[in-house]
């Protein structure tokens, strides 16, 4: 039987890998993909709490469904922004989006 902490550490490591990708990669689509990785890490933590918690069993799983819905909306809008950006300037590098720089 696996203790709860094992799942939480797995979720933490997956979250950190996703954060690494978001910080290190240039391509905006790659950044969206790494954001999905971080969403998945949070989902693992929620499902683990849902499975082990003494109170409110199943509540975490219900939240995972809301995260899934919001993640689907986020990825649709994010990729549309990426495609619009590609139309505008033929590039997808996030460090070139500096029009708002003061």
């Amino acid at each position, binding site marked *: *039987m*696996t203790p*709860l*902490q*094992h*799942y*939480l*550490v*797995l979720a*933490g*490591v997956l979250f*950190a*890998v*996703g*954060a*690494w990708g978001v*910080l*290190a*990669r*240039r*391509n905006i*689509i*790659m950044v969206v*993909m*790494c954001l*999905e*990785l971080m969403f*998945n890490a949070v*989902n*693992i933590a929620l*499902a683990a*709490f*849902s*499975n*082990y*918690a003494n109170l409110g069993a*199943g*509540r975490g*799983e*219900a939240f995972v*469904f*809301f995260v*899934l*819905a*919001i*993640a*689907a909306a986020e*990825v*649709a*809008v994010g*990729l*549309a*922004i*990426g*495609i*619009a950006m*590609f139309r505008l300037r033929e590039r997808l*590098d*996030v*460090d070139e989006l500096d029009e708002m720089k003061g």
Partner: protein
Amino acid sequence: MQFSTPVFYIVAALVIIPAVLMVSLKNLIYSAMAMIACFSGVAAVFVTLNAELLAASQLLIYVGAISILILFAIMLTRRRSGAVGIFFHRQSWAALPAAAALAVVLGLVLGSARFNAGSSPKNPATANLSRLLFNQYAFPFELASLVLLAAIVGAVLLARRERRP
């Protein structure tokens, strides 16, 4: 259903190894393939957590829908010249130590924290989950469909090609 700890380690490797590959591979298509493997691994984690409905939703939504959407976006935004770009930007050398520090901190905190939780799984039934979704969380559940509708309209509006007269 109870799963032993070695099973957990195998499933965790199925999640972490593709995730690291995905971030470090240079070709975007290979990265997307690694991402699909990672999402499937997360579905396996849900199975070991007795969340069968979540595992099925994970396969349908992430592996089925979101991966295809991302592959479409990658193929729509390919550069015509085929020139090799720079895949990691200027400050990316700092990203790996920062992410490693985040992993260490999260691992230490989450590994040692004590929660109001038993040491063994409670096996919440799917019926329990549906009761929650359609009674207590019925309003947010319906609101999520509104959010999805807004996202669809927004995505179409953003990605539409402007036709100039």
